[in-house]
């Protein structure tokens, strides 16, 4: 299972990077979202996969039993998910705004800020 999830992590990264290299703004933002998932899945996979033993201390007990899922990676992922959501929301609104202002969704046309023409002079 670890192997499969490692492959899935790699696939998320590959997909994320591939999409970020596309010309379309829309695809770029999709790539950003995938990449966010990728890091979360990586932490989760490496945090140790435990089935059916969530880190809750049962009523009447003082601490977790022998086997339990490591709670720390989960907490980290939770933080990362929330931050990732902030990224997505901001990114999505940003590209919409960019599209409105630049009048195109084509990243290849957004070279005004460091345009080679300027350098050619």
């Amino acid at each position, binding site marked *: 299972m670890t192997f499969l999830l490692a492959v899935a992590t790699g696939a998320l990264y590959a997909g994320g990077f591939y999409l970020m290299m596309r010309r379309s703004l829309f695809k770029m933002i999709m790539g950003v979202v995938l990449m966010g998932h990728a890091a979360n899945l990586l932490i989760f996979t490496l945090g140790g996969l435990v089935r059916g033993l*969530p880190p*809750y201390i049962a009523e009447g007990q003082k601490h977790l039993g022998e086997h339990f899922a490591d709670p720390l990676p989960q907490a980290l992922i*939770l933080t990362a998910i*929330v931050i990732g959501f902030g990224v997505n*929301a901001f990114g999505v*609104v940003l590209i919409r705004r960019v599209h409105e202002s630049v009048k195109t969704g084509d990243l290849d046309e957004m070279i005004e800020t460091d345009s080679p023409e300027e350098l050619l002079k």
Partner: protein
Amino acid sequence: MNQTEEKKKRRKGGRHIASLNLTVGVRYLLPLLIFLSFDILIQGHHEPGGGFVGGIVAASAIALYALSCGPHNARKLMRVSPRIFIAGGLTLALVSGCIPLFVGAPFLTGIWGGSDIPVIQSIGTPLFFDIGVYLLVIGVMMTFLLTLMEDV
């Protein structure tokens, strides 16, 4: 001329679905959802949930209201601007972190008082911290949604 007037109108009302059924449904659903979100918030210390998810549920409730009755009314419902929720949430979190400083404990130390309170069992600064998160999440989500809905 006509177009601009229409825009103005839409701007005032924002984008929403004006359906009576929905409006009535939401009216009843809203308190329920808010209560649920509170429950998730308070229970979060012991069961799945917590300030963040609770905040999202509450925000969804208000979002539903905004969807049916218009963002303008949603703002009225919230009474204060989402920004105040954000600032308030941050303040609550910060203050709950600073309280321990006055008793000589490090920043963000959990200070617990009174045990065996029903439902929450015990009360302490981490709870306030979580409430801060809850308020902030509501503020943030509503900022996202309301500005988007009001955006023509």
